[in-house]
């Protein structure tokens, strides 16, 4: 039977991992991910979850254990935040290059220095080019559903998936959510099956040194060099968007939730002004949009981006090209340039003839409070701004909520 619970986001993630029957858990505690790790070790110690818990000495080793377990044919799980994710960075590339179907929760937190335990997205954004699929949850229900779907996606496309959710805003707040029936999850998520499982019966040498050029194997069949292997990762990652939608369809039929797995629009049908955001902030913008519509008569909407890598280029261009103004609000940036999402989105729209005016906002870094009033005023101003601003002014990120 499915169950209605009111729990923290970290508990929601842990319960989803339990339902997904991950068999090897390796994690190193880091705020705000720690309660997720603790919950999993508690479930295992209490005999409620049948898995090996490996108390590793670092995040680098946490992902190493997952790499070993996944290569040896068992479904692993790990989770981290912030500097922990960065410490894993080498392993992220390794897992993706090795085409391992891993799932990891990243409880998003600002990156030091200076130390900050509070939320933003710089940790995940900084790892966007590792070859991992990156998805962002907006609420506790999405944490559960996305985690379950992530295991199936990773194992179908053989690309690791990072499930992101906001530190504190989601990880430590309590919200109601439905936990699906265990039997139904088993039917949705088949047993882990890795095509190149390490086995003495069928020995393979995985991730060996690969030359620049394609090379014949012992049977005289030409095999790709490094570049073919990497192109394959890219192409199959692009295809993962379709697979993710198919998985979501199936999930919706089984559990009754879903339908917007990549882009989740709110009041966008007739919108002239569209705000684009990732994570819990997209929910906060729903209030902003309501106010813009009700108080100011502005046809505003918010488009939550749930899949950041692969970047849904065509889908997002399709969703935004008819709007007049797009306001991209993000909790991270590519230092020295602008918001990473903003730059991606701008490049997605470039081939289309009707290009909306674009604004970029940086908000909530290091847990700086994101006040709905501030968002409302900034968005209202952007909606009303005529085209007098120079292209360079429009292209420069605005920082919301600065105190000096």
């Amino acid at each position, binding site marked *: 039977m499915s169950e209605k619970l009111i729990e923290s986001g970290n508990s929601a993630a842990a319960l989803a991992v339990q339902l997904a029957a991950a068999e090897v858990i*390796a994690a190193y505690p880091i705020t705000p991910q720690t309660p997720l790790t603790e919950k999993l070790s508690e479930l295992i110690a209490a005999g409620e979850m049948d898995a090996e818990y*490996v108390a590793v000495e670092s995040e*680098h*080793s946490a992902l*190493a254990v997952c790499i070993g377990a996944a*290569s*040896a044919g068992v479904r692993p799980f790990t989770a981290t935040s912030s500097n922990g994710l960065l410490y894993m960075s080498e392993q992220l590339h390794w897992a993706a290059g090795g085409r391992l179907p891993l799932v990891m929760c990243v409880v998003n937190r600002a990156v030091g220095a200076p130390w900050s335990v509070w939320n933003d997205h710089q940790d995940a954004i900084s790892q966007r080019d590792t070859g991992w699929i990156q998805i962002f949850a907006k609420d506790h229900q999405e944490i559960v559903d996305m985690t379950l779907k992530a295991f199936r996606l990773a194992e179908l496309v053989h690309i690791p998936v990072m499930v992101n959710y906001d530190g504190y805003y989601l990880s430590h707040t309590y919200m109601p959510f439905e936990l699906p029936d265990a039997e139904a999850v088993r039917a949705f998520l088949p047993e882990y099956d890795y095509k190149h499982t390490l086995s*003495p019966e069928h020995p393979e040498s995985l991730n060996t040194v690969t030359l620049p050029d394609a090379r014949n194997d012992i049977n005289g069949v030409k095999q790709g060099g490094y570049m073919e292997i990497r192109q394959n990762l890219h192409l199959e990652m692009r295809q993962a968007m379709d697979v993710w939608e198919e998985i979501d369809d199936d999930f919706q039929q089984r559990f009754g939730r879903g339908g917007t797995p990549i882009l989740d629009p709110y009041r966008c049908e007739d919108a002239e002004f569209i705000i684009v955001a990732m994570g819990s902030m997209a929910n906060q913008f729903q209030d902003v949009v309501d106010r813009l519509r009700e108080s100011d008569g502005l046809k505003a909407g918010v488009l939550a981006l749930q899949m950041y890598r692969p970047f849904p280029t065509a889908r997002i261009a399709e969703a935004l090209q008819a709007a007049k103004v797009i306001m991209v609000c993000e909790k991270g940036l590519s230092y020295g340039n602008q918001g990473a999402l903003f730059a991606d989105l701008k490049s997605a729209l470039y081939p289309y003839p009707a290009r909306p005016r674009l604004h970029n906002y940086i908000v909530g870094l290091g847990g700086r409070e994101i006040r709905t009033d501030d968002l409302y005023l900034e968005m209202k101003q952007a909606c009303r701004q005529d085209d007098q601003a120079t292209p360079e002014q429009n292209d420069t990120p605005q920082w919301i909520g600065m105190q000096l």
Partner: protein
Amino acid sequence: MTQIAKTNILNLTEEEFVHPGNRACSGCTLSILYRIGLKALGRDCIFVVPPSCLTVMQGLYPISATQMPVLNGTFASTAAIATGVRAAMKRRGKKTQVVAWAGDGGTADIGIQALSGALERNEDIIYICYDNEAYMNTGVQRSGTTPQGGLTTTTPYDGKKENSKNVPDIVAAHNPAYVATCSASYPLDFHDKLLKAKEIRGLKYIHIQTPCPPGWGCEERMTVKIGKMAIECGLFDLYEIEGDQKKLSEPTAKLLKKDKLRPVEDYLKMQTRFKALSDEQIVNMQQKIDRKWETYRQEFAEE
């Protein structure tokens, strides 16, 4: 201590687990260890290998010089990856040996954190460190186990100033299930220590001195002799630690009967890497060895 029947050249497994031909340098003693080591380990094994000479020796994609399943992993995480493979084997109820096989860089330097973690958890794996006493795969740079005075490309004129790390001692301080030292010049001793390691549950660590012609500056045909000389002059010792028992292995133990060991200079002069050593440094080195053997003669008196 766990007892294992001694293997000799007549009863050594004839079956080969490596293909003929590999990418090791000529005279490389790692290839001896690998070939003989696999005979002891048998087919029911999975290997975890970080970047090292072994990575190259095992072959370049899509061709392999080994018949064993191998997971190549990142430099710093050998023991952690092996932990993950072992956890998977445990989940599947398999006894398959998980063997981490790394160089001195991957073990003593960049990999020591993951190794320490696995040692503390006493993971049921065999961890082999083939110590050629510098970063040989990248072209002979100093490592934590490079001996004092040794010339490398990063200690090019006067040799390494610092002492080397004693990795087996560091490992033994974690109280793992089994610690052994080996020499590539005594491959059957290595073979039998692996047979023993297979019988023991928990972490088994085997540290092997592995002479390297381009790195040590010697003729290819001299590597086995140099390895033997390191033992005979009492510089590198073969022993095993199981529980709280330490036992010298035969090639080292038999030196206890000798009143005087060969001078370390005999070992040093066989290799160009030691040509920057001053007479004073050599005297110091000899005194250190002599002091060590004084304690050995007391500690292992009844043997």
